């Protein structure tokens, strides 16, 4: 659910940077603290970032025929916690923009907000909530990954709607339009990501 380079008008692109910045700065501080406590964790964090990137290179067969990929943020957030995920996610989004032209630099702020901030926080909150309510690890992971993915998709739809409001019905109509067109791929994908994350956790639990 990357917003492509140049797709947002300049003021909005800048605004999303402003919204994301505090989260990324807070995450960087958390990361610097962690690294100071345990210098060796740099390599582990690097591995975590690379793993997140690699997850987004997983090609999930999707109903529309084309291939789509998971955001990986749900699993990441459950494993590494949201503040650190905002930095790692930011790094990954930057690399995706520069290495793959997937997303972009002007839209980095918006993409960080949807994928590296909202997705992970929603996933983490869902995970904690499910566990507190006595749900199993697997249910927690499924809902966290699935809803984290859905939250990312909703935020992206709103971001696009803000940039291109509907001529007749404004923001709401535009949210419906963008949401509708991406729902075809995103809702099955969110379920897929949930299922996949459960399978991964199952495999890892046994290892």
């Amino acid at each position: 659910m990357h917003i492509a380079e140049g797709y947002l008008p300049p003021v909005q692109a800048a605004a999303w940077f402003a919204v994301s910045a505090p989260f990324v700065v807070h995450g960087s501080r958390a990361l610097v603290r962690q690294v100071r406590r345990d210098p060796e964790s740099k390599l582990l964090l690097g591995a975590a970032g690379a793993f997140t990137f690699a997850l987004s290179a997983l090609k999930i067969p999707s109903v529309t025929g084309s291939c789509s990929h998971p955001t990986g943020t749900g699993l990441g957030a459950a494993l590494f916690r949201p503040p650190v995920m905002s930095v790692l996610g930011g790094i990954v989004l930057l690399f995706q923009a520069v290495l793959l032209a997937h997303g972009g630099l002007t839209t980095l702020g918006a993409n960080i907000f949807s994928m590296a901030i909202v997705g992970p926080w929603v996933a983490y909150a869902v995970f904690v909530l499910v566990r507190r309510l006595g749900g199993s690890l697997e249910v927690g992971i499924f809902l966290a990954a699935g809803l984290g993915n859905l939250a990312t998709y909703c935020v992206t739809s709103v971001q696009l709607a803000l940039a291109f409001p509907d001529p007749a019905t404004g923001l709401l109509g535009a949210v419906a339009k963008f949401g509708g067109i991406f729902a075809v791929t995103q809702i099955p994908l969110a379920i897929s990501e949930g299922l996949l994350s459960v399978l991964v956790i199952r495999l890892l639990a046994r290892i």
Partner: protein
Amino acid sequence: MTAHNGRWRLRHPGEKAFLAFGLLACAVALPTWPGAVLSGGTAAALLLGPARVSAVVLLRAARVPVLFVTTSAVPLLVAVQPSGGVSWNPNGAGEALTATGRALAALLCLLLFSATTPLSDVIPRLRRLGVPAAVTEVAGVTYRMIFLLVDSLRTVREAQAARLGYRSWRTAYRSLAGQAAAVFVRAFARARRLEEGLALRGYAGSLAVQVEPRRVSPGFVAATLALLAAVVVASLRLRGPS
């Protein structure tokens, strides 16, 4: 990546960032016609001309983002009525064209940067922009490991396909989970082994490396300034006094 053997490889990354991001700013901030067209066109001309990036490479790099941009433009063609019905948006074609044009121009500017600038030149220099060393160093390790992991991912997938892992939806899901788990295990095993391997080279917490000095060419910077000014002036002129 062509960035590592391109003609502009040894230029200071700051120069290239100034040029590419300057054009990117023009593409996004100036009116799409003619601002984005001029900036995008300039970026394309620079890529194919002085930077000598081949058209094949550019087309390959642009394929996926272009697909995405065009998909995102489809909703602009229609309007949603308060009743819930959908009708043609009379201004939709223009709006979609504007958004697509701006995005394509911006994409070319992004490629101007990424196809000429190796990230190895960029990541350590981010410190000078105030990014904490811990973050640049983690980014550096991430960069290195991405290639190792994406490579294993591809190989694991191929090995699974050979063992009929993608025969049906059910087997495909099992295979995908296996891929993710295998890569997860590999990522952290790699990190542990790398830690040991680097300890042998004296690693004690800092992953600092020596960055090759690159001289900023005043000529290049001046030419960039002139070019950006020309794009801005030409855009405003062509659009005419309003």
